[in-house]
């Protein structure tokens, strides 16, 4: 006990002398760390906002990754997909240069041919990149790889209708809309669009068949629109019209056919 009590004052008297050393050893590193942290944060905050990066980004040929590992092909495609979105966002509102976007989207769709979104994205993003032909080629490739998807032929039709040139523009657009109209899941307006464009492109017979199908399958509004379209497309002479309508009979159920007759021959009564 005596030893303890005699050691106590020695310990407490040594404390003030040891404290600066201890502070130096423990506090100085903490202080240095805090100063470095503050410097790092201050530097980061004071950096000017980054301008858009180089529009020419290195994109390896799809073959490079195709030769890599099949197991990780889709993961690589997904990484490039995220990269393509960032690249598009960075440049479309900045320097308007999208030099590497076609290569990026080609790479993504080659590595993951059943990934629909990049094809659809390409149809407007590559227009911004002034590369409508690349967009068309990509969409065609997508359509071949995913023949049961209605969105791809629909987008192809839309691309041709909006940006296509030449006399056959409407016919080509109508062809793609017709392909889309035959696929499951397509909205009800797609066949109407196809029929409209077929008529506009001069393919009256195909347009009549398309409208007849819409009349058979559609709801009340679709039936009204189809009847109006058929009214203008079918021959106006009663006899010729009767012959043309008779040829359409296999498309309809008896009830719908009777409705159509009533709608088309109302003014001849």
């Amino acid at each position, binding site marked *: 006990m005596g030893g303890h009590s005699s050691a106590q004052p020695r310990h407490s008297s040594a404390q003030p002398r040891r404290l600066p050393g201890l502070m130096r050893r423990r506090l100085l590193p903490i202080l240095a760390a805090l100063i470095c942290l503050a410097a790092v944060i201050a530097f980061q905050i004071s950096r000017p906002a980054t301008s858009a990066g180089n529009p020419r980004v290195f994109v390896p040929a799809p073959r490079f990754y195709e030769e890599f590992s099949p197991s990780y092909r889709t993961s690589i495609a997904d990484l490039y997909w995220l990269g393509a979105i960032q690249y598009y966002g960075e440049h479309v509102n900045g320097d308007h240069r999208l030099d590497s976007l076609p290569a990026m989207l080609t790479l993504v769709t080659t590595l993951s041919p059943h*990934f629909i979104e990049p094809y659809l994205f390409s149809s407007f993003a590559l227009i911004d990149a002034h590369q409508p032909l690349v967009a068309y080629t990509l969409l065609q490739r997508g359509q071949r790889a995913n023949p049961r998807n209605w969105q791809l032929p629909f987008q192809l039709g839309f691309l041709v209708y909006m940006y296509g040139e030449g006399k056959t523009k409407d016919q080509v657009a109508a062809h793609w809309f017709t392909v889309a109209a035959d696929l499951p899941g397509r909205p009800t307006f797609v066949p109407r669009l196809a029929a409209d464009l077929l008529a506009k492109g001069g393919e009256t017979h195909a347009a009549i068949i398309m409208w007849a199908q819409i009349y058979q399958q559609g709801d009340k509004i679709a039936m009204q629109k189809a009847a109006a379209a058929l009214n203008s497309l079918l021959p106006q002479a009663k006899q010729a019209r009767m012959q043309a309508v008779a040829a359409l009979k296999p498309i309809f159920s008896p009830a719908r056919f009777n409705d159509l007759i009533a709608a088309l021959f109302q003014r001849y009564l």
Partner: protein
Amino acid sequence: MRVYAIALNTFKETIRDRILGVIVVFALLMIVASLWLASISLGQQGRMMKDFGLVAVSFFGLVVAVFVAASLVHKEVDKRTVYIIFSKPVGRVQFIFAKFLGLAATLACVLAGMGVFLFFADWAVSKSPTPLILAATGLIYLELLVIVALTILLSTVSSTILASVLGITLFVAGQLSHHALALTNLGHSAILKGISWIVYVIIPNLNAVDIKPAVVGEGSPDWPLIAAWSGYLLAFSVLALLLASWVFSRKEF
């Protein structure tokens, strides 16, 4: 029974390992982080979650498999517990197989945890369940079992670090083994062709059972073929373990 006791002990030992816990937590964080990636993917949340989630399962599973397997035998030798084990009627083959089974059980728990977590996380994001995620996790487990067996074999002939590095290298090589097959068709040298064939046969074809692309809609798995390749991988594992047992039986303590 003796194999069961060693396997159970290995399982308890590895499952208690703090490193394992850290890796599993990190893997789960990575899967959650893929939610962030999903948010910048133009409506492709489900696809990103599945794809990057399975890559995370595969990568962290590999880390656990290789680093734990490489130290499995060395630890027993370093701690000298191997003397106690071999003082009992336990053969070297039984020892190696028991160690493998213990780690296989640990790996099953780790991958099941990550796979089920990913399955439910994806269900929450995609609004529909994708059971293929669980199948893909199961097949990743099979790939990792081969790597565990090979790493145990390597650890019997080299140091822990070298065995770990070689284990990871074999995993990468296993993903690329089709190149070795392609090499067999190139050139006219019979020797080169022969060497290519040997390399192709030695490297486990891990690619064959990988269905990650099918999970995100790239094709559909050919189950009979996958079942056949699974049998091949299991046979490969047994062969590697038998080799490891043979090498280990020649060691003197």
